[in-house]
């Protein structure tokens, strides 16, 4: 039984090497739609992947600060922010209440068992990664007021 399982997956792994290369991780959005991260970061417009949790005060402060200027950022740089919620089953359902009541216009995704967080080697939240044309252009962990200005400067520099 054990060996069967091992060999079966070995078999699958060996016959299907010749396919996709990028991260095939799939996350769900609030409506249960499946979003493929590999496709998201290939965008020709800048993409911010921001990891947050409902219990993480600095995360929410950061997203609130960006919320204040997000419309301007979008107009100027066509940037999209994916707010990836790493909450587990305990508070995951609270995420929707938070972003709806605060009126956030971000794309919210759920990373329920932290698969994406692990894949990108994110140690702690808040943590954000910026992609542009499939390339990682900026990474930052932690938040103190004003970090968002630095982030925006990096995005503007990259798309020049």
């Amino acid at each position, binding site marked *: 039984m054990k060996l069967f399982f091992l060999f079966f997956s070995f078999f699958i792994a060996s016959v299907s090497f010749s*396919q996709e290369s990028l991260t095939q991780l799939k996350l769900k959005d609030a409506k249960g739609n499946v979003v493929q991260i590999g496709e998201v970061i290939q965008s020709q417009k800048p993409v911010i992947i921001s990891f947050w949790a409902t219990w993480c005060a600095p995360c929410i402060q950061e997203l609130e600060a960006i919320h204040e200027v997000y419309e301007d950022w979008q107009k100027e740089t066509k940037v999209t922010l994916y707010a990836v919620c790493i909450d587990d089953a305990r508070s995951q*359902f609270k995420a929707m209440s*938070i972003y709806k009541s605060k009126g956030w216009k971000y794309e919210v995704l759920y990373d329920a068992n932290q698969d994406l967080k692990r894949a990108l080697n994110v140690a702690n939240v808040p943590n954000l990664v910026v992609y542009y044309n499939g390339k990682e252009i900026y990474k930052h962990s932690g938040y103190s007021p004003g970090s968002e200005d630095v982030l925006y400067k990096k995005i503007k520099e990259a798309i020049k």
Partner: protein
Amino acid sequence: MNKFSLLFASLLLLVCTINAQSEKNKKDKGKLSGSIESNAQYYNEKDDDIGFIAPYNRFRSNNYIKLDYTIKGVSVGVQYEAYEPDVILGYPENLKGNGITNYYAAYNSKKISATIGHFYEQFGSGLLLRSWEDRQLGINNAIFGTRLIFSPNDAMTFKAIYGKKRDAYSFGEGLIWGADADLNLSKLLKQDEQKKGTITTGFSYVGKHEDYDGVVANLPQTVHLLSVKAGYQKSNLVLNAEYAFRTNDCAINDLGKVINTNKFFNGNVLQLGATITGNNSAWNFTLRQVKNFGMYTDRKAKLNQLLLNYVPALTKQQHYSLANIYVYNPQVRFSFLPGNLLNSTGEIGGQFEWLKTFPKNSKLGGKYGMQLNVHFSYYAALAFDGTDVNTAKIYSFKPANTNFRDFNIEVKKSWNKNFKTYFTYINSLYNQKQVEGFGSDNVQSNILIAEGIVKLKKGHSIKADIQHLWVENDYRGNWAAATIEYGIAPMFNFFVTDMYNYGNDNKKAHYYNVGASITKGTARIMISYGRQREGLLCVGGVCRLVPASSGLSMSLNYSF
């Protein structure tokens, strides 16, 4: 174990060959990524104020190196951990030493994912099965074995797993296997989701087996777990329901010892949730009953070792220091007092939360807006008659005495572009006797917290808070606390914190900490000096008991 290492090595070799081949064809060299984390403590020799005496090794560190290599949908990875010369106090002691603790090879395509080696998995919300890592809690119960995931389209996902859970440098005895189906019925039936809403459903099964040759006759060596869930979502409404059941298992006391009885016990969970969102506001409701459902893969396991599933406390997750003194540890499994007297069989309760944003330029919102968060939760023990587990009558859906109750209100107000304040009030009732087995059944506390954040010029900012906790029926008495932080975005952060237990007549101690952190990209270094309060450290409803300590702490994180 050797067999697996061999298989793993051959797979690595295979990947390398493929890599070499693909290099000829295309210049895809794959991607190497990884992370390094190091947490170290240098303990003071002693600290009489908090009753601390240095352990045998005064310098201790927990270190993690993780490496992953991905090429063309194939990934391989290892994690190396070192707890040298010893484990930091409060972490599982069997971690002492070093070694490769996790390794895996996986293949991922659009429809199929296959993994052998160590992996992390969660079925649904984790009620039947969850394997995860939380370094702060010293938890890494990755499953070592095989996993297959098949998602033929966006409407269906099927998973199958088989293996054993990691325990420090080895595995548990218990073998686990399971399958999970997650279905989006609206997408399957091609219904108009905008008009009719989205209906989802899911089924999970998990089995566990552990040989037994002890004195208890007919002890179930195999236990089966089943769950079914359903969800409905339409514009501003989300509804969820989940029911889980386990077959008969023996009763085990808090020390991981099987209780000699001729009676075996099943368990169940029923969880109902609703979220309603409106204009700048949202309401959450959750109700849950848990009876005998906190499980380990092994009968001898205790505390956070070899957890099979995840049944967190459904209360507010607090982030202020004083709000984390009376935290609720959910009562999800049978617990016994000394002499194997039945103490708890489960819990029943719920929570309610209301969030409201008063927008800018509204009456209450003022020029810069205001936000309100109200939260209430209540949990009671499940009722049972008698303390001898052989004859006790155990009920479902019948509340007995209160375990925990709390009420939270938080107001955030922005006064101008650069200044905002948070005010928090928390009232809680904690049944320490029931939850911890000693103390009062009526620990009542009130907490007031005020916090302000000022954004200065050029990325400089100041964050400060003051907190006070009033308590009745706990000998530790009242607390006062304050924090001040100075940040220079995005690199520097300096902080001073103090918690003063002035109400404790035996030990009026200051728990102070002074420190700084430097962040550059994904690298972060933090150094602090001070004292650690004895108590529960909880992340996501799972707690670890941290002993009091004092000394120098350093931590380093880097990822690439």
